[in-house]
């Protein structure tokens, strides 16, 4: 009971409040941008050669305002907005009119999930194994070399790193395609040719994410392992004649993995917004690209939909980590 009252309930309240705060900020900011989506739509229609009488024009403006949830005061919009959210309805996209936001997100989501789930898992596993071994053998030559490489790669901001990789492997050497998620006009089918095409196109974005992610995981893991190494039980195991492989695999890395599990869960939460820059650099057709386009065109409904997903994703990931931590680390108790 004390666990419920002292920990779980306040934690859940905090969870709900943070989601509320995040979503409110996201509701407000696009409404402060100077772009008026209704007028932009009208201008676009005119540019396409539609001539409208002023009476018809007023009707269209009213319809559009209603459809985008922009009618009434901000407070009215805010209420209507929450009402729609609870129904899981994000409305229609302004610029891919009249496609529903849910459908756009559903098309883009598999691309992003596929790319980021794979790269997150690969770089977490690689980084921890290499980092663990390097931390245990911290004084050996290969460990120092790897450390030096990580020291150069780690501080690069993602954009610069991805851009450099793109320059090198797509323009200078021309090994990989420059843009896109698959060849132009390719239809999504379950044939080997299509899957090969997708893998081929996503290789560069995946490589850039894996290299940077591995470097980060490598460094943290190496540092933690070095600290665990200095603890008494490791010395004791060595003196007791436990084989080295057993010490590294069974005692040192297992102990050091605890904080890394948290890191993994947090990076899963980041997936929804994390892909933004990757997808812009490599013109990859996922959520990040969709988000970028929607921001440029002030597509409120679309921005809302994607940001909602990402806020809920991150906060839920953090909540799950907090609540399941006692399963991984028996020393943590919430009461």
């Amino acid at each position, binding site marked *: 009971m004390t666990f419920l009252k002292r920990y779980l309930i306040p934690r859940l309240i*905090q969870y709900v*409040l*943070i989601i509320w*705060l*995040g979503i409110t*900020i*996201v509701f407000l*900011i*696009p409404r*402060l*941008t*100077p*772009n008026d989506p209704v007028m932009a739509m009208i201008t676009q229609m005119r540019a396409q050669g539609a001539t409208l009488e002023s009476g018809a024009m007023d009707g269209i403006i009213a319809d559009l305002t209603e459809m985008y949830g922009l009618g009434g005061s901000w407070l009215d919009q805010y209420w209507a907005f929450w009402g729609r959210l609870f129904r899981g309805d994000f409305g229609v996209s302004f610029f891919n009119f009249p496609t529903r936001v849910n459908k756009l997100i559903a098309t883009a989501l598999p691309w992003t999930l596929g790319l980021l789930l794979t790269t997150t898992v690969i770089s977490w596993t690689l980084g921890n194994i290499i980092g663990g071994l390097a931390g245990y053998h911290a004084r050996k030559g290969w460990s120092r070399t790897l450390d030096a490489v990580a*020291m*150069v790669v*780690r*501080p*690069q*901001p993602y*954009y*610069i790193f991805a*851009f*450099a990789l793109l*320059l090198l492997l797509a*323009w200078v050497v021309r090994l990989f395609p420059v843009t896109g998620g698959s060849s132009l006009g390719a239809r999504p089918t379950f044939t080997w040719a299509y899957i090969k095409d997708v893998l081929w196109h996503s290789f560069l974005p995946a490589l850039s994410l894996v290299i940077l992610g591995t470097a980060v995981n490598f460094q943290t893991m190496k540092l933690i392992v070095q600290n665990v190494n200095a603890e008494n039980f490791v010395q004791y195991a060595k003196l007791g004649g436990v084989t080295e492989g057993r010490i590294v695999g069974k005692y040192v890395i297992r102990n050091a993995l605890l904080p890394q599990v948290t890191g993994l869960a947090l990076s899963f939460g980041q997936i*929804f*917004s994390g892909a*933004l*820059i990757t997808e*812009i650099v490599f013109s990859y057709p996922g959520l990040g690209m969709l*988000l*970028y386009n929607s*921001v440029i065109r*002030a597509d409120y409904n679309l*921005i809302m939909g994607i*940001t909602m997903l*990402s*806020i809920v994703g*991150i*906060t839920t990931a*953090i909540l799950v980590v907090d609540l399941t931590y006692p399963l991984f680390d028996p020393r943590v108790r919430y009461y």
Partner: protein
Amino acid sequence: MKVLRDLFKDYRFCFSFGVLVIILILAFLSNFSPYDPTLWNVVPKNMKPSAQYLLGTDSNGQDIFWQATYAVRNSLIISLIAASVSRVIAVLVGMVAGYTRGNTDRILMFISDGLLVIPLFLILVMLAMIVRQRMNLVVLGLMLSAFGWAWDARVIRSIIISLREREFTKTAVLSGTGTIKLVLNEYMPFAMPLIFSTLINNISWAIGLEMTLALLGLVDVNVPTLGTMLNWAITYQAMFLGRWNWVLTPVVLAVFMFIALYWLSVSISEYLDPRTRIQRVGAQ
């Protein structure tokens, strides 16, 4: 002096020190530039590097070397504003939250958690669109600083909470030391190394974010920064045309700057941590 001598035993510190000195000299040189950085066509276009134009000229008719000096200076100004303002916020929030605890703590941490979960880059892009007309170095710096403090405030708070439980806090409070004096005189020395290393990391974060925003064309592209220089090079397809002197100038400067700042922060924090210092300079 002994501190400096110990620090210079680390190759990473020597490297960072050297690179940062060169960067600062470049930034300072911008005062002696013969050209106005905002004017176009002041020199012949697309020249190769030569004695007269050290790094050649670009397609806007600007001298790449002198343009780079301005770029370095402006990027430094933005990042220094962003980093120092956000440090002040982080220290204030962290200390107040950590020391008072209770409801103040809850509210402050609630705000910082809220900032941590919203997709920051997206918000920055939207803000950049709102203020695009009035965007200058100071506004950009302040905008970045508004979002750069949340995580570090948490870290500083956790340090203060642990210090608060120590014996010396009780001794100080019981012997009548005021709260402000206690925090400034007794707690600050413990938090200082950490604040310093977060300051360096924050500078590099701000430079990186400015470059990303500039590459997306969301800042005033007529003010030379490392990001806008690269933006122009990409706009004119400089890598297709083989003008590597143009593309690589901002990229190389930025890459060296990021490595130098990161190594500086690692080297200094390793030195400040007594456990790793012993491994490096030996017990004395």
